[in-house]
């Protein structure tokens, strides 16, 4: 199958949607499909995989209190049209077309079997509210819509008055399961891992530090491994800070601990980090947030602790640190559960969406007869 993917965000700026597009493209290529990705690229010297086509640079536009990076202009439109023309795609798959971005530009300029994945779970999106009517006309061209989570689906049901099939983000299960622990970890004194921004309050790192101090009072050999951007300041005894790490090292971090802790205090809609910990076979302690409770099947696949409560978090960690049998029960449940999120399964479902969309058309993707070049740049 000839598949065209469009990413709204710059390829060289790390982010969830970009990682999703990259993983999906590589899994589909490995299955023998002909895949081309059209994406903005900010750094002109960036090295790109052969399947990537450059659409140009994004333009920072201050909006709604933050800076959105947009790409929308005559030059990009011309590039999109020639990419569509040369690609002769059987199906076009846009990501987050509700943003003012390359994905929307591609939607303006294409017709045929087009599907889209909605990633954002933002119940109060002003962009969506403002753009509703003009967007709706464009989104009517989509043959199929995918939402990556119930929250993302709820967002488009409420703001765009349309529905979507649910296909979650994928996890490379084998990559996490086969990673080697970092040298010297987890050791015999017990090890806890944390992955995420340390200076973002909603990630709950402060709660974890408090809980760690309580745990260490009874367990002098206990260590905490921290991976993620942000400044910790002076790290307390027993805490090892790695800073921001690559995806490969992140997989190793999970494998380096007896217990993975997700002390988040809010703002999580999916909990893919928990799926990665499950894939690595690490026992999980997580805050009792709705999203986490769902992923962990009400505690079947991980220990839940009261949100923002260091005492409760310490107690949950202690339960797992002191019982290898309990850890084995949880990790076995986690492994069984994460199998259905493996990229192999997820990509298979995305392909079924493609085939369903293709069955609704007599030909492949073509350019709209007239170029649409909304000139915002």
């Amino acid at each position, binding site marked *: 199958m000839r598949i065209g993917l469009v990413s709204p965000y710059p390829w060289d700026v790390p982010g969830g949607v970009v990682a999703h597009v990259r993983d999906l493209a590589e899994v589909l290529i490995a299955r023998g499909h002909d895949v081309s990705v059209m994406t903005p690229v900010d750094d002109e010297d960036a090295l790109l995989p052969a399947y990537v086509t450059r659409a140009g640079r994004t333009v920072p536009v201050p909006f709604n209190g933050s800076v959105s990076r947009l790409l929308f202009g005559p030059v990009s439109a011309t590039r999109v049209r020639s990419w569509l023309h040369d690609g002769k795609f059987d199906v076009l798959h846009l990501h987050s077309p509700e943003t003012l971005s390359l994905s929307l530009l591609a939607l303006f300029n294409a017709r045929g079997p087009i599907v889209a994945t909605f990633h954002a779970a933002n119940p109060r999106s002003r962009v969506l509210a403002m753009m509703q009517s003009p967007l709706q006309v464009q989104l009517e*061209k989509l*043959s199929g819509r995918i939402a990556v989570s119930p929250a993302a689906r709820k967002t488009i049901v409420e703001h765009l008055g349309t*529905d979507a099939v649910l296909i979650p983000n994928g996890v490379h299960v084998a990559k996490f399961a086969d990673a080697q622990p970092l040298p010297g970890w987890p050791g015999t004194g017990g090890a806890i891992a944390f992955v995420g921004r340390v200076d973002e309050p909603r990630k709950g790192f402060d709660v974890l530090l408090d809980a760690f101090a309580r745990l260490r009072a009874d367990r002098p050999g206990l260590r905490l491994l921290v991976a993620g951007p942000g400044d910790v300041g002076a790290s307390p005894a027993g805490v090892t800070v790695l800073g921001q790490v690559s995806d490969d090292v992140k997989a190793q971090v999970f494998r380096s601990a007896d217990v993975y802790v997700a002390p988040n205090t809010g703002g999580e809609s999916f909990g893919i980090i928990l799926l990665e910990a499950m894939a690595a076979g690490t026992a999980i302690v997580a805050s009792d947030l709705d999203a986490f409770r769902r992923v962990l099947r009400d505690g079947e696949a991980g220990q839940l602790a009261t949100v923002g409560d260091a005492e409760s978090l310490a107690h949950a960690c202690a339960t797992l640190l002191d019982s290898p049998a309990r850890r084995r029960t949880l990790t076995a449940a986690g492994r069984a559960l994460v199998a259905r999120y493996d990229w192999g399964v997820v990509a298979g479902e995305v392909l079924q969406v493609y085939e369903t*969309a293709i069955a609704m058309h007599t030909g492949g993707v073509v350019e709209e007869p007239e170029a649409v070049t909304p000139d915002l740049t």
Partner: protein
Amino acid sequence: MDLVLALVGVLAVLHVAYSLWTAKRLDRLHTRLDAARAALDRQLRQRAEAALASAGASAGAGRSAPARDVAAAARAALDVRGLGHDREVAENALSRMLLDVADADLSMDDVITRTSFARRFHNDAVRDVLVVRRRRIVRWFHLAGRAPLPTYFEMDDSVLDRRTIEV
């Protein structure tokens, strides 16, 4: 007086332009809906045929009672034309029968998932048409022509969809 006439003229032109644009939009939406209906019809047919094949294979020489029921429900579903209420009843009956065999025959998974996608995309197309057709301008000026109001295809496929993920 001239001013009033000019104003009426401008409004009339705007109205005609908007009506033409809406009629074109509706035309596109109906084209998509027709394609979605045809795709759903084909997909339901494939599901019934797969069920028939599965029932035949699992039954072997001595046909078991559940296999006979599945085969009967599949044949009944194949006999109904169109996507009306009687089709919904027949397909729902087949779904209930499939509950018993789907766990035993994993080869049905693929066709079941495709059917659920085809139904969702069909109902999305219905919703998009209805949103525009409920507008006053469309109803008053008959911009939709004689096309009947589309209806959703209601079918409980959640019972069969092992793919459904709660996260």
